[in-house]
């Protein structure tokens, strides 16, 4: 049906009473997401989202009172790693962290706690995930604009925010819909990698093609390609890598986007993806054409 978020997602929003959290929670609810609880320490007992949604002091209380099974975190950077740990320890299994600017050592600790509790983190510094759905209302968690989506069967995974919107919009404009569109975040230390996302898509019966949108820095695209070469043969797959024109040694906005020495170059990533059977676009607008060339046809 989709990956990570679907009609069974019972979402709690950490930071629901904040400006960002409140705004995007309303957007999510309007798209069809079940938002069943909020957590803001010190605001327990209030109600939010036009009085529809209870707010709790702790995630543990929220989970025990509402049965939330996913969380979306809009907590400021200084407290976000703690919010992630709190969600994992309370038994939330799917945790999206939208917050950007979390100190990287905080993330090392938070991720270890996530793993210890058998949870999954998406992000931080990520736009979230949307699973548009033709059958019933779609579900989105995070900040991806609802308007760009079309229900369909192409899985999209990306390290960046607005670039993803650009790519998805071009697909939607070309009549190519998405099973799930997932932003994994641009930080050096993230919970869900490209490879993890590909594994999820590979196991999802509703996903019939893959779009991977990477960028310079690190080797996550290469690692995903190495896995995909052996395990993703059955799916048409295309990719785009941002940063071909980026100079060495300069951090291009994202904390993770930096070419250092021989590692992290766009050219290496493109080669690795092509070797794994990905068609690699030179512009996001080429993605629909390449998908078709890779053998993908939208179901009519």
């Amino acid at each position, binding site marked *: 049906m989709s990956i990570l978020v679907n009609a069974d997602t019972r979402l709690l929003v950490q930071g629901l009473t904040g400006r960002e959290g409140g705004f995007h929670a309303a957007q999510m609810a309007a798209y069809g997401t079940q938002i069943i609880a909020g957590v803001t320490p010190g605001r327990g007992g209030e109600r939010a989202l036009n009085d529809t949604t209870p707010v709790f002091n702790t995630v543990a209380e929220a989970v025990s009172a509402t049965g939330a099974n996913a969380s979306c975190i809009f907590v400021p950077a*200084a407290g976000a790693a703690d919010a992630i740990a709190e969600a994992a320890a309370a038994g939330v299994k799917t945790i999206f962290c939208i917050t950007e600017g979390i100190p990287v050592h905080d993330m090392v600790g938070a991720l270890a706690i996530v793993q210890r509790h058998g949870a999954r983190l998406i992000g931080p510094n990520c736009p979230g995930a949307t699973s548009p759905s033709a059958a019933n209302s779609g579900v989105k968690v995070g900040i991806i604009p609802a308007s760009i989506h079309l229900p369909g069967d192409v899985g999209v995974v990306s390290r960046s925010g607005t670039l993803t919107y650009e790519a998805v919009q071009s697909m939607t404009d070309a009549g190519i819909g998405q099973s799930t569109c997932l932003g994994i975040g641009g930080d050096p230390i993230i919970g869900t990698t490209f490879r993890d996302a590909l594994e999820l898509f590979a196991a999802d019966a509703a996903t019939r093609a893959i779009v991977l949108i990477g960028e310079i820095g690190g080797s996550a695209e290469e690692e995903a390609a190495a896995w995909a070469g052996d395990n993703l043969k059955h799916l048409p797959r295309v990719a785009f890598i941002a940063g071909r024109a980026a100079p060495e040694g300069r951090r291009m906005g994202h904390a993770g986007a930096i070419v250092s020495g021989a590692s992290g170059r766009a050219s290496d990533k493109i080669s690795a993806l092509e070797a794994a059977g990905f068609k690699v676009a030179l512009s996001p607008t080429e993605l629909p054409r390449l998908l078709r060339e890779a053998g993908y046809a939208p179901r009519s």
Partner: protein
Amino acid sequence: MKIHEAEARQLLADAGLAVPDASTATTPAGARAAAERLFSGGAAQVVIKAQVLVGGRGKAGGVKLAATPQEAEQVAAGILALEIKGLPVRRVLIAPAATILREIYLAALIDRSSRGVLLMASAAGGMEIEEVAAKSPEAIVRVVAHPHAGLLPYQARQLGFGIGLSGELLKQFCVIAAGLVRIARSSDADLVEVNPLAVVPAPELPGGERLVCLDAKVTLDDSALDRHPELAAWRDADSEDPIDREAREQGIAYIRLDGSIGCMVNGAGLAMTTLDLVTQAGGSPANFLDIGGGARSEKVAAAMRIILADPGVKAILVNIFGGITRGDEVAKGLIAARDQQDRVVPMVVRIVGTNAKEAAELLTAGGFETAASLDEAAEKAVALAGAGGAAR
């Protein structure tokens, strides 16, 4: 944020690690005085090292020995007159020259793949680790520190045995390796590198050798500087471009490049893509600039000032995909910025997503050149920059 060797050495010394006594000076006379202290303390020679935030200073003549205070003064004068990779040398470090028996490489760094603090050690110190990695990757020993407990004793031993140490040197190595992780964690550093970690004579010890940290490189996590005001104060504001500083203070990610097309984009990935497409269309970007999410009109105006401060800019490409960011806010900012501007350069604006329609109306009313797609915007910008669009 990179910090200078002098400050990096201080972090190591504060953590109790073996770092030779050193001073810094900003004048040749200061260097002489520092050298005099070291010579009277028993140094046979001193080393004078340029404090610049780029690699390769040795090859650029930024590291030299001196055998007398007079020579130290002369050498320091020469180094302080240098410009290394475009950066003027404003300060030198003066330290006793060590008798190096062997050199070891050791670093603690944030590692994406293992999602932790990775320790890398190699018996082939002195050279860049990338060089070792290329030539003899098996010579590099790696261990990932515990995510909360730091480098455990057995992990330090694994590293030390792995590069062939034993006895007294192994013990010292373990202390230093654990120390680097402690520094990385307590200072929120992305990288703490000691290269060389030198084996020097120590007749007083069993084994006759000891380890000292002869150089140190530390990069701090920008996202954590708020909680380390004492480290943030080490920012080398002198060597920071005023425009870079304004961008940083405005929360705008800005990197100046060599081309003629100024770019204003929201989102890092989209900004990189914009640069790629400008380049692909035969143009040359003047900068990377990400105004971030949810930018208001004032921030748009600041971004415009920053772009135009670069005299090489001949045309501007604005590319906004509205999500959190509202297109009409950006359009208003652009109109306001144009009104404040001294210098007028041609501009192409593409705004899609949230409130794109309102933005389009404002832009059309304001007489802006617009584009529907990113590819079209890139081509128009290259055309607007005209012959000046090639690299300066």
